[in-house]
């Protein structure tokens, strides 16, 4: 027994040893990933990239494979947009009976035999990007949770948009968490967490256009005790336009450590919005690789948190070719004792002349004990570039609050109006109307749930 048993990788390696198996072609990649995970171990407070993310509560919990739980009728419905083709996963496993994948593109579950999840294109990309070794700048290191996902994902979605295809309707991928009721088995003071490893791969063919909405949600928002560890990879072919929305509405005491990675070829455009309302300990690592001349990525986000929620967004955008542009706008609304970290690294390679990079992080603190951290990091090795960054941490404008109240608007409503005004641009950029309405009502619900402030 070592002192560091609380940070031991052993329980996770044990999950690996007992996993159900995988297609032959994946075996080597998995093995390699799990070895990398084992070698790296869990990050500690001494690890620069993880300094502000306290993993203690997660690593003290004993991981268990996610339970198999059939959905009761309608449990998924409230998270679905009726007009969208969809793929639904429950505890990381595909639920074909409530899924309706689109027809004109390949959208298959990775674990479904013969469905096409083992085609060459899929296998070529799967894990090649998020593995934490390939294609990242030298100092990026290994992302242990991405490696863990590669080693352990049971199922996932592979979406291949053919060259030139224009897909109007967004495809929704719902990652639903429904942990079994906590059993008495986990004796002592070691809580158990069910772990799932959602995996998404989107390959956007040349000059294709499509939208993908990922939704992370809990069947019972109060039943936490689970750990979701997703990886999403986006491979954006030349001239493609890909829109991505990531709505995270997990249970407020769930662990959510996600990794997303987009690689862009010439003139490709990737626009992603990440909206976080749920989760207790949340970390999102987002990587944008502008690998083709003239490519553009927009990485936006919103976090609206309360209580003891913690949300950490770690961004890395790499400009590797000339004439590439990137825009990041992250806004946070923090109440209670909530804490946030925004770490935005922009890395401009020497070859990437005429880079235009913009990064903004704005935080609104609604309580005395909420805390926001914002750390921009620019590393620029080209000389003809335009990079701007700005971050603000502020409180509600008391003068504006008084002005609204002096016109008869109740304090609570005035408060909500001002917070909504702060966050709305990130909700309103959603072009799919049912999605926009969903985001709006989630934002309003989280503003009205706070009681007197």
């Amino acid at each position: 027994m070592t002192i560091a048993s609380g940070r031991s990788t052993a329980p996770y390696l044990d999950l690996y040893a007992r996993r159900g198996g995988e297609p032959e072609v994946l075996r080597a990649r998995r093995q390699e990933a799990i070895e990398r995970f084992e070698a790296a171990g869990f990050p500690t407070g001494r690890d620069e990239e993880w300094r502000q993310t306290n993993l203690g509560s997660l690593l003290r919990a004993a991981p268990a494979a996610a339970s198999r739980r059939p959905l009761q009728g309608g449990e998924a419905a409230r998270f679905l947009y009726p007009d969208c083709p969809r793929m639904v996963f429950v505890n990381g496993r595909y639920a074909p009976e409530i899924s309706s994948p689109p027809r004109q593109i390949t959208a298959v579950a990775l674990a479904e035999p013969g469905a096409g999840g083992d085609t060459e294109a899929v296998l070529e990309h799967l894990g090649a990007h998020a593995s934490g070794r390939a294609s990242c700048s030298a100092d990026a290191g290994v992302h242990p949770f991405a490696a863990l996902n590669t080693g352990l994902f049971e199922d996932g979605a592979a979406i291949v948009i053919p060259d030139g295809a224009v897909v109007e309707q967004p495809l929704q991928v719902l990652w639903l968490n429904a942990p079994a009721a906590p059993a008495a088995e986990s004796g002592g003071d070691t809580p158990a967490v069910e772990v799932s490893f959602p995996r998404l791969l989107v390959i956007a063919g040349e000059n294709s256009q499509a939208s993908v909405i990922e939704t992370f949600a809990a069947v019972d928002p109060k039943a936490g005790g689970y750990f979701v560890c997703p990886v999403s990879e986006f491979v954006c072919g030349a001239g493609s336009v890909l829109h991505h929305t990531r709505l995270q509405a997990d249970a407020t005491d769930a662990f959510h450590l996600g990794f997303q990675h987009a690689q862009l070829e010439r003139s490709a455009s990737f626009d992603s919005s990440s909206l976080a309302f749920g989760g207790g300990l949340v970390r999102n690592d987002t990587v944008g690789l502008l690998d083709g001349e003239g490519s553009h990525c927009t990485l936006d986000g919103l976090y609206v948190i309360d209580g003891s929620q913690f949300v950490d967004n770690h961004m890395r955008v790499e400009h590797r070719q000339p004439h590439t542009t990137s825009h990041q706008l992250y806004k946070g609304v923090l109440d209670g004792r909530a804490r946030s970290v925004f770490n935005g690294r922009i890395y401009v390679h020497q070859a990437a002349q005429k880079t235009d990079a913009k990064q903004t992080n704005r935080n609104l603190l609604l309580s005395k004990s909420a805390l926001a951290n914002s750390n921009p990091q620019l590393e620029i090795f080209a000389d003809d570039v335009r990079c701007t960054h700005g971050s603000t941490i502020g409180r509600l404008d008391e003068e504006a609050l008084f002005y609204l109240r002096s016109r008869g608007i109740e304090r609570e409503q005035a408060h909500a109006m001002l917070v909504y005004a702060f966050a709305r641009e990130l909700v309103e950029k959603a072009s799919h109307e049912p999605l926009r309405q969903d985001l709006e009502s989630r934002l309003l619900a989280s503003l009205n749930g706070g009681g007197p402030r």
Partner: protein
Amino acid sequence: MLRVSDLHAKVEEQKILKGVDLEVNAGEVHAVMGPNGSGKSTLAQVLAGREDYDVTAGSLELDGDDLQEMAPEERAHAGLFLAFQYPVEIPGVGNSYFLKAALNAIRKARGEDELDAMDFLQLLRKRAELVDVDEALLRRPVNEGFSGGEKKRNEILQMAVLEPRLAVLDETDSGLDIDALKTVAAGVNALRSEDRAFVVITHYQRLLNYIVPDHVHVLLDGRIVRSGGSELALELEEKGYTGLTNGSSGD
């Protein structure tokens, strides 16, 4: 309607109002004049219920109700309206959305039905026409990027929509061109009635040619040192405040 007695107020430990008495009856228009820094806006903000202004002595009553017991929004529900000297910019909140929320909050508090979008829009259009506010301003965020004059007109538009019983206009005429001044005055005059009252804070006698007051008060160093009819404004114009204090301040 409004009764202010021996009002003392301070801001950040600084005494600003040092015993203000003011009584306004329904149907009346009162003008309050006084040099910069004499406490006019402080009086207005205290009336509207601004929390960082401390009332240390005296009383404020609206229709017999103690205003100090009421939150700012409750004062608005009771029919009080303050046109701010410096209207606040509120990015992200649409002007017409804001006005609808305000009107419906007041109606709801009074037990009246809330207006639906159509009815509200109709009302808003009419009022905007009355005070000559461009429709483009209604679609923009509240006061954001408005010119000085546009902000003042927007205050008057709010007044015209909310139809308060007691409106306090804090230098609404400052920064207005002559046509705008006339429009604002016309807006006020259109609302004048037996059961409404106005307190008009101004530096310029000019406004009082258009909104003829029943009473004029001079606020000096936190006190009302003189009151009179509309002729007092003319006297001030001529002599200035120094002339006035030398002449007739009795206390």
